[in-house]
């Protein structure tokens, strides 16, 4: 008994001292559009430790995908990124383009949303995965091919040698998703950024993708930034959840705490608008990032808003050891 306890304490301590894999400090991603500045990501700070899955939840246009792409510096020329992005203690933002290319696809990987437009329609899918393997490993072609076939069978793509020669249009949506996954995990990355892995999939495929991500994460101890708008996917996978609204993180904490006891009115509103809870939409719609409301960005839609919310902008405050909220009138 005592032994078990100390073992547990040990593992807890390990978790506490676990190495930070990615630390984002005051990240701002701005776009210059027609002379005006659009703040897509505004002062976001977060940490992902080794082996952790962080769910990033938000609605269309809140900046969650831009945040993911900022980490990989895969943004168009008119984007400006400020702040610090520390990956294993090293600043990413100051890396040269060549250094960044070495990191991207090997240590940090993106599994993009929309599998059907992310594959080259004119290339056999096996060769597309092969590209990633050959680029980052010093393997002979034959060795690389067998590695790809191995990956395919691990991800339960039937008859790997035949699938290798298939073109994207011959695969279903779920299979394409798996091919992208194979590409992603091919180089044993440290961090996978998964952008909306279940968008547009039906319930059966969705649970399959969730299972696949879970297995990938636990088998290799890979960390993930899981970008999604689906609470149930985040609940099934993520250790912690960050909720984004209009470019900012409004709530962040352990998955169970955020889902069972949402403290920000926006999180509570989102959870309340799930179909199982009847039909209780949040009034109004998300603000355009070009013209944000004064004060708290959520106040025009918030039932708890008062004078203070219209006048000043709340900071992200610590509620308890692992739960942060950006609100003056926290829900209880």
């Amino acid at each position: 008994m005592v032994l078990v306890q100390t073992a547990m304490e040990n593992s807890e301590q390990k978790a506490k001292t676990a190495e930070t894999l990615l630390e984002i400090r005051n990240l701002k991603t701005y776009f210059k559009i027609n002379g005006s500045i659009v703040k897509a990501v505004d002062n976001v700070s977060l940490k992902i430790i080794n082996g952790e899955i962080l769910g990033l939840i938000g609605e269309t246009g809140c900046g969650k995908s831009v945040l993911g792409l900022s980490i990989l510096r895969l943004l168009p020329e008119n984007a400006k990124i400020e702040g610090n992005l520390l990956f294993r203690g090293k600043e990413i933002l100051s890396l040269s383009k060549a250094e960044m290319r070495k990191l991207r696809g090997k240590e940090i990987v993106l599994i993009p949303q929309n599998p059907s437009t992310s594959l080259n329609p004119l290339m056999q899918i096996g060769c597309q995965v092969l590209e990633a393997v050959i680029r980052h490993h010093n393997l002979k072609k034959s060795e690389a091919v067998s590695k790809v076939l191995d990956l395919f069978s691990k991800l339960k793509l039937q008859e790997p040698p035949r699938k290798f020669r298939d073109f994207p249009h011959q695969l279903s949506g779920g299979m394409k998703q798996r091919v992208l996954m194979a590409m992603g995990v091919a180089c044993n990355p440290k961090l996978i950024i998964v952008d909306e892995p279940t968008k547009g999939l039906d319930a059966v495929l969705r649970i399959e993708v969730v299972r696949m991500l879970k297995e990938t994460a636990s088998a290799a101890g890979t960390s993930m930034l899981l970008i999604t708008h689906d609470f149930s996917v985040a609940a099934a996978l993520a250790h912690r959840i960050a909720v984004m609204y209009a470019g900012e993180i409004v709530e962040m904490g352990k998955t169970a705490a955020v889902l069972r006891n949402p403290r920000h009115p926006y999180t509570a509103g989102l959870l309340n608008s799930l179909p199982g809870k009847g039909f209780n939409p949040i009034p109004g719609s998300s603000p355009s990032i070009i013209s944000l409301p004064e004060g708290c960005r959520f106040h025009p839609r918030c039932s708890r808003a008062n004078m203070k919310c219209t006048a000043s902008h709340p900071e992200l405050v610590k509620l308890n050891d692992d739960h942060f909220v950006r609100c003056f009138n926290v829900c209880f």
Partner: protein
Amino acid sequence: MLLMAENLSKEFFKGRLNKSRIRAVDGVSFSINQGEIMGLVGESGSGKSTVGRLLLLLLEPTEGRIYFNGKELTRLRKKELQNLRKDMQIIFQHPQESLNPRMKIYESMAEPIRLYGLADGKSREKEEILKLLETVGLTEEHLERYPHELSGGQAQRVAIARVLALKPKFVVADEPTSMLDVSVQAQILKLIKKLQREYKISFLFISHDLEVVRAISDRIAIMQKGKIVELGEPEQIFSMPRHPYTKYLINSILNL
């Protein structure tokens, strides 16, 4: 009973020389009462969208009969069918794609009204359109915009308003919220519920999202490989599924 499908089937031809056939819908029978929302659930490729299109005769059935309001649709002449079209409408999955990108919202909304001569004179037309906008929760400022200047939720409201202009009896809603965010989804579902209550419109609500269908439907039909394998009230289907496929679907729901 407003609508009844009897032994409905649809075969598509494919392959070289159209030699192989796919039976997308295979002997489907069901009925929808007035003011009822019938949910139709199944995996991608189960044939649920094809059923929706067959009911409106947007596709010609290979076999089977459809009765709408006591008339057998499959035997009507083109002209008669055209008049009936006013009563049976469809809302699509991608609202932005179902609106003409080169028309302002006002023009898009005026189109069905003009087509069926539902308002005499410009001022009546405008009046009618403003009334519709209010019903779906949009305002006059949206009228001068183009579809790309609307959000997904707003575009879906416009699509619903256009359908509503014709005062239909039956609407096929084909995955109307699958591209929308949860909070916007709740708004659109609430609107559909309101249309059912206030205008007694019947819906065939097609979706792959079991939770959504459970929340909105009066009855649910489960489709697998072109066949309806189970049909019943939501509570019964979710608490006591009979068919193994229904059980399989329900087990694949991710719980919060």
